[in-house]
């Protein structure tokens, strides 16, 4: 039977390859925060309080572009709604834990940690202390995200503005959804959402960021109906 610490270490080693993308992403985020005009403490605070890479970029980008707080906050909620799916899957493995432990572990659930720990849970059903794997992967990712954000904040304040680092925002999101391009239904939904956002870009309070995803989801619904 593996000890708590051994399982924690397995979580660390399983998630380690993902750090190759998480660390540069954190650095890019920190630099973008400064580039968008936010002070270092505020930029870092989003990593500590929100702790959700893509949503942090969107949040700061919208606020710097003049969006209302309500629009920016709602966008964060929409982007992070995928965690609900992760939670639904993980709850099966975590249901024996005390409420306090559940509340603590929840903070560390992110995409990459979910991916590796879910695989481990499936392979090791019934083993004690499995949640230490999720803590190992989650705390590793959390630490790297915090440190890389700070490095990015430092770099962002010394890099020249002429580099146009803001362009890293759309590039980061292209990288995140690139695999979905292979699915025709997702491709259609992406093009519709993107064109709608461009068309409604000048809507009040930057509300295009909520209008266009709704149009995209409606398109997805129509595709469902058509397939049936």
């Amino acid at each position, binding site marked *: 039977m593996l000890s708590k610490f051994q399982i924690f270490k397995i979580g660390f080693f399983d998630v380690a390859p993902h750090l190759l993308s998480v660390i540069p992403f954190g650095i890019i985020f920190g630099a973008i925060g400064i580039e968008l005009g936010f002070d270092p403490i505020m930029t870092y605070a*989003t990593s500590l309080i929100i702790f*959700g890479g893509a949503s942090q970029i969107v949040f700061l980008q919208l606020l710097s572009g003049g969006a209302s*707080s309500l629009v920016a906050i709602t966008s964060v909620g929409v982007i992070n709604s995928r*965690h609900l799916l992760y939670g639904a899957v993980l709850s099966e493995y975590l249901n024996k834990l005390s409420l306090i432990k559940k509340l603590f572990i929840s903070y560390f*659930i992110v995409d990459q940690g979910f991916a590796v720990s879910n695989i481990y849970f499936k392979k090791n059903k019934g083993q004690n202390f499995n949640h230490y794997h999720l803590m190992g992967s989650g705390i590793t990712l959390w630490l790297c995200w915090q440190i890389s954000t700070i490095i990015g904040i430092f770099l962002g304040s010394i890099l020249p503005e002429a580099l146009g680092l803001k*362009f890293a925002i759309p590039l980061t999101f292209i*990288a995140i959804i690139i695999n979905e391009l292979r699915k025709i239904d997702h491709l259609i939904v992406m093009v519709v959402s993107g064109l709608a956002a461009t068309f409604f870009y000048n809507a009040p309070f930057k509300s295009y960021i909520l209008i266009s995803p709704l149009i995209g989801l409606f398109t997805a619904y129509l595709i469902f109906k058509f397939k049936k």
Partner: protein
Amino acid sequence: MTWTSIFIAGLITYFTRMGMIALIDKDVFNENFRKILNYVPSVVFPSIIFPSVLLNDYGTLVAITDPKIYGALTAIIIGFFSRNVIITIASGLTSYWFVIFVF
């Protein structure tokens, strides 16, 4: 105001993580709702990508020769084949800088 927004956004994000684990019965979401959630990245991120690439700081369309267009197309092509996050971002930035600083 921004600080308040950060805290509220943080609370909402924490709720999305904790809700299904500690509070809500997971069966409350039916299959259709789960399918819709799968589309969330595909509807949200293009809503950021398209205007960031196609529009300038004043909200009007850029020229077809804009460096951002080259950067985005390069990232899409390289990303499609490499399936690697960092290579995708790096290739897009490199071609963007190449057009700006070399041409």
